[in-house]
């Protein structure tokens, strides 16, 4: 392998690495030659990218299409207060350049999709999964299996974190463990359920550690082992994972040999898109349609199913919305008038779908969900509305 050389200033900078017998000059050159893709520059991607840059990983790719929001700052330490409103990739590039000007940061300002994933991932030695949704996790996994690229997995929710390494040669993949995606809308995301900010710091740092070990080819990695961290109890649980001999993607005779539609696979919809469920008994309405209904002579009964703190930041209260958090809906169905059109909304549309199903099952309706939630409302009807 043709290693690039290390300059005097690099030798100085990496002195504590080079002093390690497991790293040395050769290991540091391996890190410099290393190419790592971080999928997501959020809670996990922040410590990950910072440590990879500080460690001198030569090429750090980042996939993210989001802007920095004030609600990110409690955990996404890659970005600062002055970065709010900037593209995360711009903010990340500036910060990483400051941490270590010897590394190259490559931005991929797009949503990872089945169409572009293989093209984006193929140039990298290691891919690190720091995404915030299940469709992208399945997509990253399958693309890594197809390319034979290790997938350093991490995920967080509230006080629990998970970390493992998937898709190594002979090792299990994400699908060997999570064979079927969770039913849509059942598992809340961090925006809905919260996350203690230090937690992705811990899990993302472990992903950085595993990535560096993979590049160095040293130590015992997490392939075939899932670590589950409980921050409240301060305990780690380790589960041995095996390859599923019938895994549709990584078994010796896979039934899936390319990428699929992962939104469909996970049964979720994206803001602005119609429902992918074929037999739903409620309607998905875009923001403009909901606005028109609310302005009509017979406005529907409008329910906000988010949490009180989300409601406190912004809501459609002025347009007649009532707050009934999703978790309380079952007990408070009596408050909803029967035989009246009902429109529900949440932040991004997922909780709204769950609420709509509950209402339909309770005999209410006709029921509609604001597709894409308040986020899409803020995009097309009420620009500037802050949505946490």
């Amino acid at each position, binding site marked *: 392998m043709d290693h690039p050389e290390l300059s005097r200033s690099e030798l100085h900078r990496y002195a504590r690495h080079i002093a390690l017998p497991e790293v040395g000059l050769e290991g540091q050159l391996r890190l410099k030659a290393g190419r790592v893709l971080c999928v*997501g520059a*959020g*809670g*996990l*991607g922040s410590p990950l990218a910072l440590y990879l840059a500080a460690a001198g990983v030569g090429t750090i790719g980042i996939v993210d299409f989001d802007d920095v929001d004030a609600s990110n700052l409690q955990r996404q330490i890659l970005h600062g207060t002055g970065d709010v409103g900037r593209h995360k990739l711009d903010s990340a590039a500036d910060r990483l350049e400051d941490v270590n000007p010897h590394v190259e940061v490559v931005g991929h300002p797009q949503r990872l999709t089945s169409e572009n994933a293989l093209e984006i991932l193929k140039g990298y030695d290691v891919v690190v*999964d*720091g*995404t*915030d*949704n*299940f469709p992208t*996790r399945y997509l990253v996994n399958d693309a890594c299996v197809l390319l034979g690229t290790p997938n350093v997995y*991490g*995920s*967080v*929710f509230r006080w*629990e*974190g*998970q970390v493992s390494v998937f898709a190594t040669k002979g090792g299990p993949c994400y699908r*060997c*463990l*999570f*064979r*079927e995606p*969770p*039913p849509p809308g*059942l*598992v809340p*995301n*961090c925006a809905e*359920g919260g*996350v203690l900010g230090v937690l*992705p710091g811990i899990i993302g740092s472990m992903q950085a550690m595993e990535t560096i070990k993979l590049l160095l080819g040293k130590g015992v990695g997490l392939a075939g082992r*899932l670590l*589950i961290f409980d921050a409240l109890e301060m305990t780690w*649980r380790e*589960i*041995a994972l*095996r390859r*599923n001999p019938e895994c549709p993607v990584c078994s010796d005779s896979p039934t899936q040999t390319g990428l699929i539609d992962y939104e469909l696979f996970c049964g979720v919809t994206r803001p602005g898109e119609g429902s992918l469920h074929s037999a739903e008994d409620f309607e998905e309405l875009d923001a403009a349609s909901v606005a028109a209904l609310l302005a009509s002579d017979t406005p529907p009964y409008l329910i906000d199913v988010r949490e009180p703190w989300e409601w406190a930041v912004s809501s459609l209260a002025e347009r007649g919305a009532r707050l009934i958090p999703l978790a309380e809906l079952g007990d408070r169905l009596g408050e909803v008038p029967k035989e009246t059109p009902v429109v529900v909304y949440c932040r991004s549309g997922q909780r709204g779908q769950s609420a709509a199903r509950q209402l339909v099952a309770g005999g209410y309706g006709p029921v509609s969900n604001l597709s894409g939630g308040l986020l899409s409302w803020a995009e097309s009807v009420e620009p500037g509305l802050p949505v946490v």
Partner: protein
Amino acid sequence: MSVTDTIQVRLNGKDRDIEPGQTVHALLESLELHPGMVVVELNKQILPRDTYQEHQVHSGDTIELVHFVGGG
């Protein structure tokens, strides 16, 4: 004095006494876990979600429950 029979299983790395004669589905229900929210590993075998009603939990079983955690 009534004697309550329980069986001991190893659940998430800890010994735990549970009621005998339960299916995996019933166990999840008693733990207030929706079957769609966890992966169940029973004696090192990951169970398909649609078989939770079929699998009986026996004394000495090792059960690992892994939550779907998707945040980043």
